[in-house]
């Protein structure tokens, strides 16, 4: 098994799982009934994609591993998602900005993956990118609505942009697994940064919002160093598996 490819797959899976988990917290609490349903659809897409990646990782690893071993039986230091996706929902604005930043990154990454020589990954990417196109459309439209909506919505969403932007840099900062993917398969997360910035800035401009000036970014998620929030996510996520180990559900 190529350990670096395996870790790269877990990076992808963990991003999808943790973001899906966060968005799923909206179910039953959305700002309008129609949006409750829309958010849950998106959460289902994310968790669904996480499953595909975990299944692939399990297949690579063998030894009777299953898709559930990764989310439910690892410790927080063995999760490799970027810190951005761990952030709490706070309000609908934060939720949208978090997705908006992530969706753009993920879209460009999947676009590379669809063309890669790694057939299994390319196949997942081809189906996943259709869902992500919709996520991108959803989060971008809401950025415009909130940014150019009322004074209050503008203030709230601008605050979220300000607070979450420092967590975006990590997406383009290659981990050892990313370096390997670049050499072996030409998948280059660092190269996405320019595309990402152009696309994000264009929509922010339409939304009458601004990116903060700062060039300093948080990092660590891809190497298993997280914010305090991940521990709480895992406390809930893994509760049953920890309380009743080794059972079928």
């Amino acid at each position, binding site marked *: 098994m190529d350990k670096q490819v395996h870790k790269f797959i877990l990076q992808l899976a963990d991003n999808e799982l943790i973001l899906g*988990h966060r968005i*799923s*917290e909206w*179910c*039953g*609490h*959305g*700002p*309008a*009934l*129609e*949006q*409750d*349903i829309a958010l*849950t*659809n998106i*959460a*289902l897409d994310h*968790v*669904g994609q*996480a*499953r595909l990646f*975990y299944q692939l990782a399990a297949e690579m690893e063998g030894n009777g591993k299953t*898709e*559930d071993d990764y*989310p*439910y039986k690892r410790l927080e230091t063995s999760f490799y998602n970027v810190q951005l996706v761990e952030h709490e929902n706070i*309000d*609908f*604005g934060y939720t949208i900005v978090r997705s908006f930043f992530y969706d753009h990154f993920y879209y460009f990454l999947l676009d590379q993956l669809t063309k890669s020589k790694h057939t299994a990954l390319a196949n997942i990417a081809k189906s996943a990118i259709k869902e992500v196109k919709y996520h991108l459309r959803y989060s971008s439209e809401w950025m*415009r*609505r*909130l940014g*150019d*909506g*009322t004074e*209050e*919505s503008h203030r*709230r969403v601008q605050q979220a942009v300000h607070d979450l932007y420092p967590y975006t840099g990590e997406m383009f900062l290659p981990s050892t697994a990313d370096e390997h993917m670049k050499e072996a398969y030409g998948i280059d997360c660092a190269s996405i940064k320019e595309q990402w910035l152009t696309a994000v800035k264009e929509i922010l401009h339409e939304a009458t919002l601004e990116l903060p000036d700062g060039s300093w970014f948080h990092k660590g998620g891809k190497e298993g160093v997280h914010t305090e929030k991940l521990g709480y*996510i895992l406390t*809930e*996520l893994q*509760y*049953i*598996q920890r309380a*009743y180990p080794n*059972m*079928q*559900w």
Partner: protein
Amino acid sequence: MEASMEQKFQEKIDNDIRIEPKDWMPEKYRKTLIRQISQHAHSEIVGMLPEGNWITRAPNLRRKVALLAKVQDEAGHGLYLYSACETLGIERTELIDQLHTGKAKYSSIFNYPTLTWADMGTIGWLVDGAAIMNQVPLCRCSYGPYARAMVRVCKEESFHQRQGYELLLTLSKGTPEQKEMLQESVNRWWWPALMMFGPNDADSPHTAQSMAWKIKRFTNDELRQRFVDMCVEQAEILGVSLPDPDLKWNEERGHYDFGEINWDEFWNVVRGNGPCNKDRINTRVKAHENGQWVRDAASAYAKKQSEKKSVSVA
């Protein structure tokens, strides 16, 4: 004039001709429908909360997506029903306001807490099972939009009961802890599930009129009996006992006899004293209030965009 209109209306109903939104209808028919459909819609929306509790704690990914999709369906059902209700000339905001101020009721079952993972299965089996029993006849309800919404709801609902039962079946084949979790959950939900059919027929003042208008097709007690008969066998397959010492087959009636429901508890929960009444409403109110700025922003943005468009056309 009114009397002859009413007679014509009743003739249509008797001939199984559906009533559609703009048709003439007695004011009481309209009011009864608004009350019943909105109560039904509210039940779906409040019903998302007890199960929503466990979305973040589901024990594996397969269960997590199934539960999430199920709770989402309830939002969908609430939406179909609010839409049906709106055809009677009342807006959703007003209906939601009635829920939040306590003017409108919802099914009391959702005022009970979900305490263990097994509750996700028991709700699917018993609560959705009882709901389906209530809902299937509504697909033939005399009011067109309600009947059509119910057809869609029932179609989607069938997966809910199956996912619940499958979840329980897995527990029933599991460890002693899992079997205990299963039995404990069934013990808590059995009686509240029976209460979902409403008061005994003798104490149900609206039933006769609703039956005449074909809003309702069977009485509360008829449906409750059917439900009990159905559950006994399903409980056996799960290897659980139902917590009723008086439950036994009555050869003469061809049905199961069952014990007296604790109606004091029922009315107590209806009056707002169930374990979760306040919690459920507070949660809904909070979601609605927290969403206000979002809804306002979208409205404001839409207004700006349409103004821009009309300027560019001019």
